[in-house]
């Protein structure tokens, strides 16, 4: 027993030294992350581990997927991300796996990851950069800042500008239109929606809708009575396919009490991609999709508009995302590309 | 007997009274001891024990008799020092039992009472060794001397053959003997027994009392027994204390206490008393009409 204690004292004294790199003295640059921490980022950042699906998507959007050496079990978009080495869950990743991948930088987000994980990485001498995105604007600026940290500021600027352009276009179309009152359904049993402070609520706003849920909690449990009293105009579901979204609605409509909602009796619901659940660049296309379903008049009046509209891709981006256009029930492949600089 | 250890344990406590009025022949002195118990401080006491006095010498057996709930067990606890008397005091060789430190008390006073059910039954020899607890320091292991004393104690009660048996696998009478052996292992001056004959058959009862008398005279114990068995008390006790509703009606040799009118008044039933051949009284129930 005493031997153990003695042995345990020795190694922890070495904990603070960063992994030894005999090749060259590493260069560091300091950044302040979105949690207010000062992070020593090795330059260049060659090996990245992402501990959140949204961050993985962002890395792909910035074209840095070749530098991504590990991500979580839940990182499934784009499909290529599923092939990366896994380090476990977002909340409970395996520290051993992370260390074994020898990352230069680990990406975390305050929305999902635990402070304990960050502390553990610190004590192991592994740098971690954290994001904190509670509005769509923050998602865009966070992406740009992340691009700077990772050494690709141009890609970040371009992506950001593109997203801004889409949002500006949307703002123009929806100008003057009264927002729809919606209930965004995270989970139906128990009924969970989103609080006003979340990026999802913000996404609603940008799509010309307001969430009827007025709660300071992020994931408030709603009572059906309250929802019936508030009578939302639309129910909004997020689903990987439009079919499962349709299914979600049908199942819900069968439940007792839900017929009390006008939206249910008149089948007023919208299904958008589950991209809305992740604070990543892809959320913008989900916002557009929702706007289209809630305010079709804003889009059909536009002279350039077609049933299956293709958002013109900026020429220098070259990866594709799959976005659902549920109003037609088909999936339209939009060529939106990310550039690998 | 390790009298050296005993006297050193007395270092912190002092005998009560001056050397002059300390009668060296008297070991146990119960002086005007009374007690009251009430569940609620504002209400009248549910139970009282009125001032009681008697004395006992080494080698004597005192029997405390009386109907149920008359304070017999409470008196025993007061003698043992487990309860503090409301007034008066109990002296053992001049020391107030209640104020003795725990260890010192364990070395002088041994109690045999109805046992709580054993959680993890131990072997008889383990059980008896518990009696050596007051003599060791914390974190002690049993010494050769302890083992010898424990074995001796079992032999004295005639239970050596039970040594390796589990406590929950022996009969009531056998268990009683082992419990007595544990008390003997404490090498006490005072041996207190609370209704030891309760679950025993007549043979075992006689056996127990015979053993007590033998031990009392051989080892010079002072024994105080609370019992229901009038005839055993009459046969074996040197003194009998008769109680009714918390009041001690009479204390003395059996012949003076076993008076028919007194007993009938206390026990509320017709009785007859006859004097046996040995000079000891026997109580009989007259035949029903």
């Amino acid at each position, binding site marked *: *027993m005493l031997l*153990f*204690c003695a*042995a*345990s004292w*020795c*190694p*922890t004294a*070495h904990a603070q*030294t960063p*992994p*030894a790199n005999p090749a060259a003295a590493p260069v560091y640059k300091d950044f302040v992350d979105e949690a207010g921490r000062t992070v020593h980022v090795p330059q260049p950042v060659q090996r990245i581990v992402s501990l959140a699906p949204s961050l993985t998507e962002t890395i792909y959007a910035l074209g840095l997927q070749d530098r991504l050496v590990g991500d979580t079990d839940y990182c499934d978009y784009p499909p290529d991300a599923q092939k990366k080495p896994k380090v*476990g869950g977002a*909340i*409970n*990743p*395996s520290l*051993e*796996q992370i*260390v*074994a991948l020898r990352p230069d930088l680990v990406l975390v987000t305050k929305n999902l990851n*635990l402070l304990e994980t960050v*502390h*553990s990485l610190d*004590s192991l001498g592994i740098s971690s950069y954290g994001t904190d995105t509670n509005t769509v604007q923050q998602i865009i600026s966070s992406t740009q800042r992340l691009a700077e940290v990772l050494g690709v500021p141009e890609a970040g600027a371009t992506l950001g500008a593109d997203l801004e352009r889409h949002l500006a276009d949307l703002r123009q179309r929806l100008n003057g239109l009264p927002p729809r009152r919606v209930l965004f359904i995270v989970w139906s049993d128990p009924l969970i929606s989103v609080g006003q402070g979340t990026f999802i609520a913000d996404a609603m706003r940008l799509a010309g809708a307001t969430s009827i849920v007025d709660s*300071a909690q992020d994931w408030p449990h709603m009572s059906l009575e309250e929802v019936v009293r508030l009578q939302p105009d639309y129910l909004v579901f997020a689903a990987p396919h439009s079919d499962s979204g349709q299914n979600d609605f049908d199942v819900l409509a069968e439940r007792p009490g839900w017929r009390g909602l006008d939206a249910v009796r008149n089948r007023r619901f919208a299904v958008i991609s589950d991209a809305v659940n992740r604070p990543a660049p892809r959320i913008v296309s989900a916002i557009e999709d929702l706007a289209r379903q809630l305010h079709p008049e804003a889009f059909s009046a536009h002279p350039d508009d077609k049933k299956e509209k293709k958002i013109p891709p900026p020429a220098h981006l070259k990866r594709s995302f799959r976005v659902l256009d549920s109003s037609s029930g088909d999936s339209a492949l939009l060529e939106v590309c990310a550039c690998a600089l | 007997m390790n009298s050296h250890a005993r006297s050193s344990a007395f270092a912190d406590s002092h005998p009560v009274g001056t050397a002059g009025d300390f009668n060296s022949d008297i070991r146990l002195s119960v002086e005007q001891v009374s007690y009251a118990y009430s569940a609620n401080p504002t209400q009248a006491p549910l139970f009282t024990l009125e001032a009681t006095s008697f004395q006992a010498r080494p080698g004597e057996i005192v029997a405390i008799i009386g109907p149920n709930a008359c304070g017999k067990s409470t008196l025993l606890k007061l003698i*043992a020092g*487990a309860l503090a008397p409301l007034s008066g005091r109990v002296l053992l060789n001049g020391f107030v039992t209640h104020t003795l430190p*725990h*260890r010192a008390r*364990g*070395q002088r*006073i041994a*109690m045999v*009472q109805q*046992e*709580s059910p*054993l*959680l*993890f039954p*131990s072997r008889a*020899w*383990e059980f008896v*060794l*518990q*009696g050596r*607890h*007051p003599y*060791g320091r*914390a*974190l*002690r*292991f*049993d010494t050769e001397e302890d*083992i010898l004393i*424990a*074995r001796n104690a079992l032999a004295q009660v005639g239970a050596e053959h039970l*040594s*390796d048996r589990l406590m929950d696998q022996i009969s009531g009478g056998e268990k009683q003997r082992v419990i007595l052996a544990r008390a003997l292992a*404490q090498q006490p001056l005072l041996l207190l027994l609370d209704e030891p004959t309760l679950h025993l058959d007549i043979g075992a009862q006689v056996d127990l009392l015979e053993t007590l008398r033998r031990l009392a005279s051989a080892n010079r114990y002072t024994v105080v027994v609370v019992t229901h068995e009038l005839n055993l008390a009459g046969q074996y006790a040197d003194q009998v204390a008769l109680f009714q509703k918390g009041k001690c009606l009479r204390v003395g040799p059996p012949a003076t206490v076993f008076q028919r009118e007194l007993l009938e008044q206390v026990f509320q039933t017709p009785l007859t008393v006859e004097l046996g051949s040995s000079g000891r009284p026997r109580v009989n129930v007259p035949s029903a009409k």
Partner: protein
Amino acid sequence: MRPLTLSRLLLHCAILSGVLFVVVVIALKLGAVPVSLYGLGHDLLRVLFRQTSQLSSEYQLIIFDIRLPRILLGIFVGASLSVAGASFQALLRNPLADPYVLGVSSGAAVGAIIALIVEPHLDLAPAVAALLTPVGAFLGAALTVTAVYFLGLREGQIDSGTLLLAGIISASFLSAIIMFFMSTLTGGNYRGMAFWMMGELSTPPQRIVSLVIRFGFFLAAGIIYTTASDLNLLLAGEKEAMHLGVDVRRVRFVVYIAASLLTGLAVSVSGAIGYVGLLVPHVMRLLFGSDHRILLPTAALGGAIAVVVADTLARTVISPSELPVGAMTAIAGAPLFLYLMRRGLT
């Protein structure tokens, strides 16, 4: 007649220590990242001889900064919970007593959560702030033990059945409070429901907390060990123990405080892990008898073995994801408990 002797005690402890050592070595070997046994032995020697620069740094990190601290944490948590369990069983004269069943673990968790809520509002040095959680857990444990004890009294005596009921109700109530906290607290870092209610060893605590855990264990377990003979007698009954020279009041008070401290320390770093405090003492009693002079040390070693094994399984069965340790102890513990019950142990 074979009374316990010092040599027998040391022999049994040595055997168990040997088992623990083997378990630790296996635990060091297993994990999400493979490690060879030979290499491991070699490296341990290197560490002892301070030649650490020859090890690859990731390897060193994994073994010495991740696995070994985690294993050591498991050892102390397991030992603490087992000794606390054995103590409660003796004091309360109830074979089903253990910190988890009696609600003491949940009380410690509530205390720790409250400490976490309060901590940002106090301006404390980081070292002191880190200690606030174990202190809160200890207070929560002590208060719960007191409450359960008084609820379990009946006419001034501990009644086994009433006590158990009081414990179960307290555990239930306190778990509900934990769930309430977890549902309504926003911001801050409260570790999540799975941590508090099922236990987790995946995040090593800060150094000062580790030191407090280890020191606290030896202190509290040592204190309890000095009352080992008294506890033996207490098992025979409080009245009997008193007449045999045991200062029942003092022993009860001291052991309650010490056992609460052990529980509080364990829960504050690992959440509420169940079944360890309940079953390890029983198994050790089966093997070595119920004399506390041997039961307490063997329970400590046995608890350490149990938690290290459970934790190793928890982090390897669905690698690289992890199960909470408490889930593992429950999966293994419940059938074992049933088996012991059938054997008529209690």
